[in-house]
């Protein structure tokens, strides 16, 4: 199969009819963009670097793309579009990727952007990026036949690679700044330069980062705003207030408490959107420790699965902001998701029967057994999920004790000490199951001390073979079938119980326009955003 993409007008228009595209052309539905103004972007936490080539922390991804751009960008269906690369092609065997680079692109220090920068960036990502190590693991060489052509050579096909080249995921960094240094400690992380629409101006730790308009940006009429103030507001209540009184313009990944949404939705000056959230879908799940005395037993896991009412949980805990999901691959990844329901439907009688068969009969106090349930404290829903499960499981004679801890204590308990029975957890699927899902179920990724590895200690040679096969399968039809088979096995063997895929909202003041034009929304370069005066 030859996959040759050219960003023709028709191709780009197909997925994007309603969007304003490069060069500042606006479509008919939206008013003409205005110039100037300051956008205040509210962020939950402060990054430890402004260049995401060395980390995958959300706080870094949010800011990095404003300065350092990617070879490609993606429409809402994760179809690639031109960014720093204008044309790209993949050889039929899936082992050679050729990129034609955009001419006359300059870094903020005036030096030209060339294929040498691409080669350096890919090698850097392969060496130090937490995901890049896997994404680019098969890269043997990046050839640079001329300054505007970069050729990535692979030892084996990597069918997910073409989706990994967004700005925040795989930033193109200036080789002349990084060459010969340790990328992790390079001062460019604190005061980055790149090719992006915004220049770094100031970082006041504990407060904010300011980006200002790059007047020499390669898209002549962009960017439109004068400056972007990224403000770190750790308290969700304070973020609600900021949206309410207009001191904050935009925030993403549902930046306020879910309980506040109903109240905020009544305010006429706020807009809630779901565009630009398709580059990273999460799946929230109950994860068992398969070494636990209770959950090593398949019947106990099946019994718990019979007790889970996903729809009710989604309504009670998530206020309906999500989609029920019974497989490890999120419904948002339409290409790979298996929509069939869990083989274990809501059935408390069946659950009781399975628990009896497993040898956990009700005692004199009607209790079968008691176990602590932990939760990942990153979101605010974890505790409520555990409480929901405590109420549910009490019906079949299982007592749940909800146990809290902060993030590092949670990571140590689950992944290093393995001192848990069952935990509420969440995994990002990212743009492809090989990148986001494989790590959780692949037996070779059972690694003590590594967060978000195979935390259940699940080990099934059939699953291993399917995942390994899919990671190098060049035929999309075969690859899809492998992931479908994989999901069937996981749903049957229940090393974890997938519950739902959260729906993330971007909240913005109605004066903000054209902020989320790509799959990764506000994590992109946000070159087109503009404000009503």
């Amino acid at each position, binding site marked *: 199969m030859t996959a040759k993409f050219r960003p023709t007008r028709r191709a780009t228009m197909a997925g994007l009819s309603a969007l304003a595209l490069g060069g500042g052309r606006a479509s008919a539905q939206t008013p003409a963009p205005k110039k100037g103004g300051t956008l205040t972007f509210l962020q939950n936490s402060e990054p430890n670097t402004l260049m995401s080539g060395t980390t995958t922390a959300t706080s870094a991804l949010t800011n990095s793309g404003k300065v350092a751009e990617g070879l490609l960008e993606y429409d809402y269906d994760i179809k690639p579009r031109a960014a720093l690369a204008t044309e790209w092609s993949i050889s039929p065997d899936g082992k050679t990727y050729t990129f034609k680079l955009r001419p006359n692109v300059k870094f903020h220090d005036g030096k030209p952007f060339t294929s040498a920068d691409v080669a350096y960036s890919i090698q850097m990502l392969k060496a130090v990026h937490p995901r890049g190590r896997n994404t680019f693991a098969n890269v043997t060489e990046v050839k640079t036949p001329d300054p505007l052509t970069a050729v990535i050579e692979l030892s084996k096909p990597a069918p997910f690679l073409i989706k990994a080249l967004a700005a925040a995921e795989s930033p193109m960094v200036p080789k002349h700044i990084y060459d010969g240094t340790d990328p*992790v400690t390079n001062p460019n992380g604190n005061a980055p330069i790149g090719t992006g629409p915004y220049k770094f101006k100031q970082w006041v730790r504990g407060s904010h980062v300011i980006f200002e308009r790059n007047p020499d940006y390669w898209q002549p009429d962009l960017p439109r705003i004068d400056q972007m103030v990224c403000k770190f507001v750790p308290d969700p209540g304070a973020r609600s207030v*900021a949206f309410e009184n207009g001191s904050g313009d935009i925030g993403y990944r549902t930046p306020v408490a879910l309980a506040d949404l109903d109240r905020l939705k009544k305010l006429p000056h706020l807009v809630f959107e779901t565009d630009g959230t398709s580059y990273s879908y999460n799946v929230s799940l109950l994860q068992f420790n398969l070494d636990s005395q209770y959950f090593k037993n398949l019947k106990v896991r099946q019994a718990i699965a019979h007790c889970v009412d996903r729809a009710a949980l989604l309504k009670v805990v998530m206020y309906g902001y999500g989609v029920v999901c019974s497989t490890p691959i999120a419904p948002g990844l339409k290409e790979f998701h298996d929509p069939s329901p869990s083989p274990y439907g809501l059935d408390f009688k069946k659950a009781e029967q399975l628990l009896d068969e497993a040898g956990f009969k009700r005692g004199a106090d009607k209790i079968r057994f008691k176990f602590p349930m932990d939760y990942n404290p990153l979101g605010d829903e974890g505790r409520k999920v555990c409480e929901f499960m405590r109420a549910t499981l009490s019906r079949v004679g299982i007592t749940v004790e909800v146990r809290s801890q902060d993030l590092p204590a949670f990571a140590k308990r689950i992944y290093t000490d393995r001192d848990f029975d069952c935990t509420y957890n969440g995994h990002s699927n990212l743009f492809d199951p090989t990148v986001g899902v494989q790590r959780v179920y692949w037996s070779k990724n059972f690694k003590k001390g590594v967060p978000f590895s195979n935390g259940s200690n699940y080990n099934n040679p059939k699953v291993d073979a399917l995942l390994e096969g899919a990671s190098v399968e060049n035929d999309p039809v075969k690859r899809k079938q492998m992931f479908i088979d994989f999901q069937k096995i996981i749903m049957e063997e229940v090393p974890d119980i997938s519950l739902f895929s959260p729906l993330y909202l971007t909240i913005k003041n109605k004066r903000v326009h054209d902020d989320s034009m790509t799959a990764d929304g506000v994590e992109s370069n946000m070159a087109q955003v503009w404000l009503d005066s």
Partner: protein
Amino acid sequence: MRMGRRIATTLKRAAIHAGPTVLGIVVLDFFFLQLMPGDAADVMATEAGSASEETMAALRHQFGLDQPVLTQLMNFLNHLAHLDLGFSPRFNTSVLDLILERLPGTLLLMVTALGFALLIGIVLGSVMAAWAGKWPDRLLSIVVLLLYSMPGFWVGLMAIVLFSVKLNWLPNDGSETIGAHLTGFSFIADRLSHLVLPALALASFFVAVYARLVRTSMLEVQRQDFMRTAHAKGLNPFLVQLRHALRNALIPVTTVAGMHLGNLLGGAVVVETLFGWPGMGRLALEAVLARDFSVLLGVLLLSSLLVIVANVAIDLLHAWLDPRIGEA
């Protein structure tokens, strides 16, 4: 002359105490922090949402966490001896820079809050003492009781709801309007408008403490002989209250206020988080959550120094208020 000697003794005593106190605090804190589950690498990896064995090892090596605990302590002390507080993994910058950047914010907030607390507390206390047992005293007692029992963060939240959300008079977040390029009067007005709410929230509890303290000690002083003498001399009753009663009543207030500086630092953690104030309290909280021990040790070290300095200042203030103190 006597004053000069007094200052010298106070400073000498402080200098002798400071060294061991600071060392003790640092070493104890270091071991307490070791008891916390998880380390900075765990935090960075969980925040990142993905990790591999290699990235974990690289992170631990970068932060020096792959070394034995005692070596880490010796490294820290060695750096400290060279006035170097180390490097923060979470914030990717030198700890000293980080703290010095935040210190002015916290000092401003603390001094303003303490100023509010003392001013309002002394006025309320004096009024209560002057009308002891009558209706102004009763009414203010209720107000003071409320302030005493409401936690500062709740006062802060309610103030945000009223002044930031409903009335939209004062900002709820940060210490200045970012990116507005203000100068002169509008700059000062902007800073003040950001300062008022957090300072009042932080001060609320201490207002109650000082009001009650001033009331009690003023009432006690009223019964003293020198008060009767002053009244007998025919001095203006207002001046008697101000120069004779209040001045003597201030001794316990200043003693307590000195001790409260430490409490204020603690309270600042909550108030700074609530109001997004870029200060040391929030930094300390973030450092704990990020297991960024070099930052936390730096903050604790500086806080202990701050308390020591405050105690010296209070000693000197006492000498001025009542020259008899500490003469022996």
